């Protein structure tokens, strides 16, 4: 039951490339199609005959050499946002047929010069400038520009074939061609005379195996008359040369059109891929690029770049060429999907969320009730439940802006800071280890706590952390360099914690589904190559310093890599601590990855899911569910000078944060566009604190006074059965996955029978106290409900509870059983 996505007759190719494709296909299945959807209230869309807006891609064409060509895509964008491919029906006229002509859907060169193409459709005309140079010259087939892209496109050098660490059947190529010189050696000189036949190039084993004329474990990959085979044969005819040292390299790639909104089951849309080279030229590489969809049910793409819409949903199309990957979003909606009219936005956040929802034809949920909002805001902002007094005050408050007032009030609580100290402590791995004594850990924690409490901007905290020098007691931020002492792991941690990028793959090969190359990896690691460590007077202390010595070498060629910012330039590091240079850049406005990552991390706390999710896995192939929203949030965060409170205030005041979890027919299936509140299990520390709060039975944790909250635990190594079972992070890695939110059997058993609930109910003796104070059972029921769930019981519940209580001989025991039931209820353990 294997499927090839490339349905264009390259069937034999499947064996070699299917693995690669499906890796992405499936990996990127962040979305799925809506298969069923009822539209109760919305009106069917009007079928306007108004002509759509005409768009032509690419905006200009530059052809170099007689054989160069460029595909073009022409589309019409309707008022309803739906895009339609009209490339075949539009009229295209050459401005000067002595310069340029169009055949077979391709723009081709006739003679040197400049002209244009006039594209006309539905009464509109657009002009596309065309420039042709060097028609008298034809570039020779090159190893890097042609041969390796061919091998990559055909799947020869992927991880399951010759690109695997040990090669395949004795022939080893570098994975996706990261080592062209090594590949040249493997093909030409490793077994001289075996793989290439210079006398009869088409008889070369390299070609014969690939075209199925010699036994090949990987099967037949392409035909002898394909452009793949022609490239290989032509190269061998030329003597299979390596490239000159100054050969142009790919600087970036573009994919056109930049997005698509298609109708389900409707007409296909073409996409094209263009690569740009260091010598200023560009080239249409649609047929050499690897094209993938993360959601074939929704939109499929074949090797020629035809995108066929399937069922309703969202997909990401990914194009990879050379070391570059670019993704474009596709939305597929039914042709008759009714439009939606979103409610009045409360702030910019809602505007970006609604814009996406309109495209998806999703109506956001209603705003939640005051009860729900009060509880949600308390848990998210302070990690505590609202007290019955706070509940009464809020419900009784008649002012229209009481929610905004509550947000402002909660933002000023010290619990707000503690909640964020805990989360940053996870990013910074604050825990005691063999290398980090308990005292050093505590100083490190206090360092972080003081700064967050004093409203120090987040970027300054991280800058201070990364540039830290000195003793782990006197300059506690240096403990960051003690908690991970391996240079490569350290640089991976920094990338993951503060930039959200997982670099691990690029240690051994260019990341196949992301922008990071081995060069990026080792150049980034080079910032941490000169971290010196020496013992201090106190045996529990270590001094971290810049030892001005040490390099990181690239495993291919063993060259020392100059430090270079991730996705940025190589800085001047002369006479400076490399880490300081990095810290300045990382937290500066030049690096948008940091702001985006922090914004996304904060967002995820309030919505249970990042805009990029997980927050520490930013990849081209793991796109944000709403890119413009993330951009806007990051911009605000920078504009606010990383003022966390101000930023959080925006989030909590948005209508989007205040949505009900109750869905409507249009958004019931949506999990990633924030069209309704997500139901989230409360994280372990907060859940235990909430149980302690309502039962009135305090906890005791190592190093903290009786009654301290679990959120305040400094050391990742301090835990108890409850916290461990409910997934507290040990902070052994920086991965956000350490915080486990999934339920398990032990959690259920522990809440049902364990001491965290039963013993605390007994210890706090809340019910007994209320009974002794002479409160009637009905009032105690209400009190328990409000304390645990921030609401009074419904009439149905009252009736049922009354029956149970009336039957009970021991009222206190029965009320305690209700208390138990409330603490075991999903309404209690989930934030909703």
């Amino acid at each position: 039951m294997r499927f090839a996505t490339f349905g264009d007759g390259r069937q034999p190719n499947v064996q070699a490339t299917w693995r690669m494709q499906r890796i992405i296909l499936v990996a990127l299945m962040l979305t799925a199609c809506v298969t069923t959807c009822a539209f109760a209230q919305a009106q069917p869309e009007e079928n306007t005959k108004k002509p759509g807006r005409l768009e032509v891609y690419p905006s200009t064409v530059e052809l170099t050499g007689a054989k160069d060509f460029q595909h073009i895509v022409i589309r019409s964008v309707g008022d309803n946002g739906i895009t339609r491919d009209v490339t075949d029906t539009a009229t295209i006229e050459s401005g000067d047929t002595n310069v340029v002509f169009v055949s077979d859907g391709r723009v081709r060169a006739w003679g040197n010069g400049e002209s244009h193409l006039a594209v006309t459709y539905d009464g509109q005309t657009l002009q596309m400038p065309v420039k042709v140079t060097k028609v008298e010259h034809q570039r020779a087939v090159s190893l890097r520009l042609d041969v390796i892209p061919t091998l990559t496109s055909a799947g020869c050098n992927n991880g399951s074939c010759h690109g695997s660490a040990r090669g395949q059947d004795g022939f080893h190529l570098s994975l996706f061609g990261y080592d062209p010189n090594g590949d040249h050696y493997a093909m030409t000189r490793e077994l001289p005379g075996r793989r290439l036949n210079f006398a009869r190039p088409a008889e070369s084993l390299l070609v014969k195996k690939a075209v199925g004329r010699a036994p090949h474990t990987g099967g037949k990959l392409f035909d002898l008359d394909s452009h793949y085979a022609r490239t290989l044969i032509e190269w061998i005819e030329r003597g299979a040369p390596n490239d000159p040292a100054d050969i142009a390299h790919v600087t970036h790639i573009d994919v056109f059109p930049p997005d698509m909104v298609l109708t389900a089951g409707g007409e296909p849309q073409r996409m094209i891929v263009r690569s740009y080279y260091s010598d200023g030229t560009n080239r249409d590489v649609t047929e050499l690029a690897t094209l993938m969809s993360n959601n074939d049910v929704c939109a499929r793409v074949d090797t020629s770049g035809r995108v066929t819409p399937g069922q309703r949903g969202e997909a990401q199309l990914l194009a990879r060429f050379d070391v570059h990957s670019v993704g474009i979003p596709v939305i597929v909606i039914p042709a008759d999907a009714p439009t939606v009219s979103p409610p009045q936005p409360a702030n910019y956040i809602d505007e970006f969320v609604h814009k996406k929802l309109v495209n998806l034809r999703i109506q956001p949920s209603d705003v939640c009730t005051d009860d729900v909002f009060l509880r949600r805001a308390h848990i998210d902002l302070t990690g505590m439940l609202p007290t019955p007094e706070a509940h009464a005050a809020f419900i009784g408050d008649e002012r229209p802006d009481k929610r905004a007032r509550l947000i402002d009030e909660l933002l000023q609580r010290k619990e707000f800071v503690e909640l964020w100290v805990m989360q940053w402590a996870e990013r910074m791995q604050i825990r005691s280890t063999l290398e980090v004594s308990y005292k050093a850990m505590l100083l490190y924690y206090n360092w972080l706590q003081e700064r967050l409490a004093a409203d120090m901007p987040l970027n300054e905290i991280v800058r201070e952390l990364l540039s830290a020098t000195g003793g782990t007691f006197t300059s506690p931020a240096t403990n960051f360099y003690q908690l991970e002492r391996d240079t490569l792991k350290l640089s991976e941690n920094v990338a993951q914690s503060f930039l959200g990028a997982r670099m691990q793959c690029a240690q051994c090969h260019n990341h196949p589904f992301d922008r990071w190359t081995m060069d990026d990896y080792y150049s980034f690691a080079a910032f941490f190559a000169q971290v010196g460590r020496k013992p201090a007077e106190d045996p529990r202390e270590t001094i971290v310093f810049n030892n001005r010595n040490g390099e990181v070498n690239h495993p291919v060629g063993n060259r020392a890599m100059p430090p270079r910012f991730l996705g940025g330039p190589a800085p001047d590091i002369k006479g400076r601590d490399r880490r300081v240079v990095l810290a300045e850049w990382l937290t500066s406005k030049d690096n948008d990855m940091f702001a985006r990552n922090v914004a996304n991390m904060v967002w995820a706390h309030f919505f249970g899911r990042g805009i990029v999710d997980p927050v520490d896995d930013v990849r081209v192939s793991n796109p944000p569910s709403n890119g413009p929203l993330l951009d806007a949030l990051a911009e605000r965060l920078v504009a606010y000078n990383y003022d966390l409170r101000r930023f959080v205030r925006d989030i909590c005041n948005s209508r989007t944060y205040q949505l009900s979890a109750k869905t409507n027919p249009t958004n019931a299936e949506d999990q990633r566009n924030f069209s309704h509140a997500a139901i989230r299990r409360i994280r372990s520390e907060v859940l235990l604190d909430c149980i302690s709060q309502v039962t009135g039975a305090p906890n005791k944790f190592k190093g903290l006074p009786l009654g301290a909250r679990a959120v305040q635990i400094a050391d990742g190594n301090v835990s108890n059965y409850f916290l461990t079972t409910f997934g507290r992070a040990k902070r052994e890695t920086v991965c956000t996955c350490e915080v486990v939110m999934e339920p398990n059997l032990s959690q259920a058993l522990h809440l049902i029978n364990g001491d965290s609930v039963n013993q605390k109910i007994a210890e706090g003796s809340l019910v007994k106290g209320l009974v002794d104070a002479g409160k009637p059972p009905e009032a105690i029921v209400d009190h328990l409900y409000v304390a645990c769930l921030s609401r009074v019981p419904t009439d149905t519940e009252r009736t049922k509870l009354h029956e149970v209580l009336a039957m009970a001989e021991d009222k206190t025991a029965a009320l305690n059983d209700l208390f138990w039931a409330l603490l075991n209820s999903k309404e209690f353990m989930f934030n909703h």
Partner: protein
Amino acid sequence: MTHTCNDGTCGGGDHTRPSRRDFLYVGLVGGLGLTLPDFLRQQAFADQKDYALKTPVADSIIHIFLPGGMSAQESFDPKPFAPPEYRGPYSAINTVLPGVQFSEHLPHTAKIADRITVCRGMTHGEAAHERGTHNMFTGYRPSGALQFPSMGSVVSHELGPGSDLPPYVCVPSIPNEYAGTGYLSTRYGPFALGSDPAQGDFKVRDLSLPGDVDHQRFARRQALLETVDSHFRALENADVLDAMDAFYQRAYTMISSKQAREAFNLAAEPDALRDAYGRNEAGQRMLLARRLTEAGVRFVSLVYGSWDHHANIAGGAKDQLRAFDQAYAQLIRDLDERGRLERTLVMVTTEFGRTPKINGDGGRDHWPRVFSIALAGGGVQRGLVYGASDATGGGPDLDALTVEDLATTIYNQLGIVADKELMAPGGRPVEIVNGGKVITDILAKPA
């Protein structure tokens, strides 16, 4: 390109006949957003290597793991004819198999050698504790980029629960980080006892109702909880709630199921039998493992002892070997006498072996090039020594057994084809075992 399950290609167990939970998960699939690994997996089947379950030969696995790295020379593969510095402190004794000798501290096991298969050519290249452990728990070499699931989690994922009990149980607790679910959903994680069967007052944590709650009162609690929950359930409809519900149901089942509670009740075993196993960690853990597999647990992961004998191996290993020997031989005999050995595969493994030469401290250091493991039941041959180490225990001499082959063979006996691919995050389909083969030579009855 949707995946259908009616052609029998998508694996068995919980996939061939979707349960209510599966159905609910799939119900979510229509979504514009998809967070559920299950659905990913189902969709991904279209592009993953997939195999139907075979008819299993074994119903359960008991994996007895000896952390630290047990010496083969001092256990299953003595070298009585090697020079003294290789031979070590112990002598060798005959077993019931002609020409096969074990260490003098495995006298009971020597008597049941005709019921087990000893593999003396086990090999992998990982000489660090955590890496060796990783190999033996997951069937994979450690990778920086991917967390692999333990065999127990894979079995749980592939076969699902076999009774009121959870499919994968760790005795007494989760032994190391590699016993977890790796890239699979935590739904397939182990259930850890939380307390040691060797303790006199052994009780599974939180399985019994609190002292002041009898069944009548518990029924009232459940009724009250149902009242509170039903309001919320009517309002909110999310998959996470359903998952939590499922665990509450399983918890209720376990609390109220006599079968489940009895499975953990070691006191129900006759005193004589408990003595025969040995009233110690090895004995009582193995006895409990037998009870659990009888009650339908698919995979019991059990650890015993601490075998990292860098110094004084003569004194350090002896008592542990004796306790292990008594318990293990009794477990095999017990299972056999109850007619359950044929359906229960007992696997004894360790991190790695130990250096051929005794070191200056009278111990042996880490040696992953060759060591011994033992398999019994579940279709494994009776009375076989498979493979051999060389004369000084330096490397495999015959029939080297790799981690991949071992794991593939074990999975095979449960009916699981290890070449099947599961979905890792980042959308990476990963084989259950990468490139292993079934070692039919050690199987009397392959699945």
